[in-house]
């Protein structure tokens, strides 16, 4: 199982080496732009601390989670759709001695690697800018990988069912964008209308944001994090990943091996 999964991930990485330039804006530049413009620029007008952080220190860990989330959403959108419906890349991988599970797991693994690279670049720049006090912030990279997995797996199930690419925009407009804005990245979820809050608390991004922020507080201020806090958020993220994986496998069985 593992060997085949790694082969699939390597295959995606080889192809990504040819196309990575097209993804630099969403993966590397946009998050840093947000950090500069919103965090440092607009943030300088925010006088109060937010949950005990300066505004930019509040924002940065949230943006880190968004980087992972959006990288996952991007990969789970058109590239996946094209690989299944347009270029038959999936069908081709399935003529090699690989199972559907390996092809899926390998693709998801590739996405977590992409998320890790984006997250690491973001952390490094944020640390250089002094937003993160400590290089320990790089320990947030594995969290970003889990967030990417938790977001990509269920989105895969959605994309794999599509028979027209028109609905891909629906996901990015109605799911990815609103979640990126309202999952406690720019302001605490508690400031949202009470009716919306439970919805947001389901989203993998919110759990990722909470985890990153909690851990970054622990690294920088030494405030410590409760094991239950870590386990709770990680648990929800892994649940999203597992349910998404199972659903996607189901859709793949129907569409790719029928």
């Amino acid at each position: 199982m593992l060997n085949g999964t790694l082969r699939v991930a390597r295959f995606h990485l080889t192809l990504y080496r040819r196309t990575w330039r097209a993804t630099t804006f969403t993966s590397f530049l946009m998050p840093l732009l947000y950090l500069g413009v919103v965090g440092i620029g607009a943030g300088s007008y925010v006088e109060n601390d937010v949950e005990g952080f300066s505004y930019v220190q509040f924002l940065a860990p949230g943006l880190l989670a968004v980087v992972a989330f959006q990288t996952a959403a991007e990969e789970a959108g058109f590239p996946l759709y094209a690989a299944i419906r347009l270029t038959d890349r999936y069908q081709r991988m399935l003529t090699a001695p690989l199972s559907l599970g390996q092809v899926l797991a390998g693709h998801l693994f590739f996405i977590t690697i992409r998320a890790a690279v984006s997250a690491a670049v973001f952390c490094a720049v944020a640390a250089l800018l002094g937003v993160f006090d400590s290089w320990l912030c790089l320990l947030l990279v594995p969290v970003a990988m889990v967030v990417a997995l938790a977001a990509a797996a269920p989105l895969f199930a959605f994309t794999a069912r599509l028979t027209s690419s028109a609905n891909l925009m629906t996901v990015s407009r109605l799911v990815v964008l609103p979640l990126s804005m309202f999952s406690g990245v720019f302001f605490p979820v508690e400031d949202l209308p009470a009716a919306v809050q439970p919805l947001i608390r389901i989203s993998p991004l919110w759990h990722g944001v909470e985890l990153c922020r909690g851990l970054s507080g622990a690294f920088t201020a030494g405030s410590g994090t409760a094991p239950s806090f870590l386990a709770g958020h990680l648990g929800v993220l892994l649940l999203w990943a597992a349910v998404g994986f199972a659903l996607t496998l189901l859709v793949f069985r129907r569409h790719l091996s029928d």
Partner: protein
Amino acid sequence: MGTGDALISAQGLMKRYGDSKVVDDIHFEVRTGEVFSLLGPNGAGKSTTMRMLSGTSTPSGGSLRILGMNPVKDGPAIRARLGVVPQKDNLDRELTVLENLTTYARLFGLSRKAARERSVELLEFVQLTDRAKDLIDSLSGGMTRRLTIARALVNKPDVILLDEPTTGLDPQARHLLWDRLRELKRNGVTVVLTTHYMDEAEQLSDRITIVDRGRIVASGTPAQLLRAHGTPEVVELRHDDGCDPSHLPALRSLAERVEVLGSRVLLYVKSAEETVAAVHRAGLRPSGTLERRCTLEDVFLRLTGRSLVE
């Protein structure tokens, strides 16, 4: 020949999508080292059968064994020894000709060095060595097809499945491709191919199964099919003003079978020369006549019933 000698054995194979039976009770055996062709019009169920063979489509019924394994359970193990050439070329346009082979070889678990060596060797085999560094978009249809076939050979397969390998190619490209397939056969590779070109089937196949609407309509060697379903020769009568239906009874008495294909009338006969003489003696004046031997295409048209069979 018993099941023991068969490399592939399909018995009562079924594939249903909802209420429609795409493959309906198909049975065939493919022996080691032979070229076996599945012939049929579009939509006959050829591609679906091929996908079931490679374990990427699950049969709805019947039994299927390939290389002694069950494609539903052992898909990856079977595909390790299988080469698949899909109907639609699906090469990676981001990659060069050579890289298309090496990346695919790596999916089979070949080391970087082995993948490269094998790929260089295969480019030689399909005569694309001088295009190794080019991108896919710069290749002609025939080159793309040859590269897809080379890709299917990275794992030195025991069996290669080709789904309509020459559709859309010009004659030169087709002949070059046929030559490569014969070379594979000489090297002991078992070839399973689908086509709707009868000359291709006749050129390459040891045995043929003709399918139509999911069902088998005939099986055998090309010679057997011709003997069983054709006549030695065929006379084609051309009528520029259309065929006069009142002549048909007279024509029928001259031939074993008569088919009307638009402005042409085909007479299936033992001797074309004698029949043409008889046609003229009967006072019939077609615009032109053609005497030829009976081909698989005649057999195919008759069996798949796409023409007005008289």
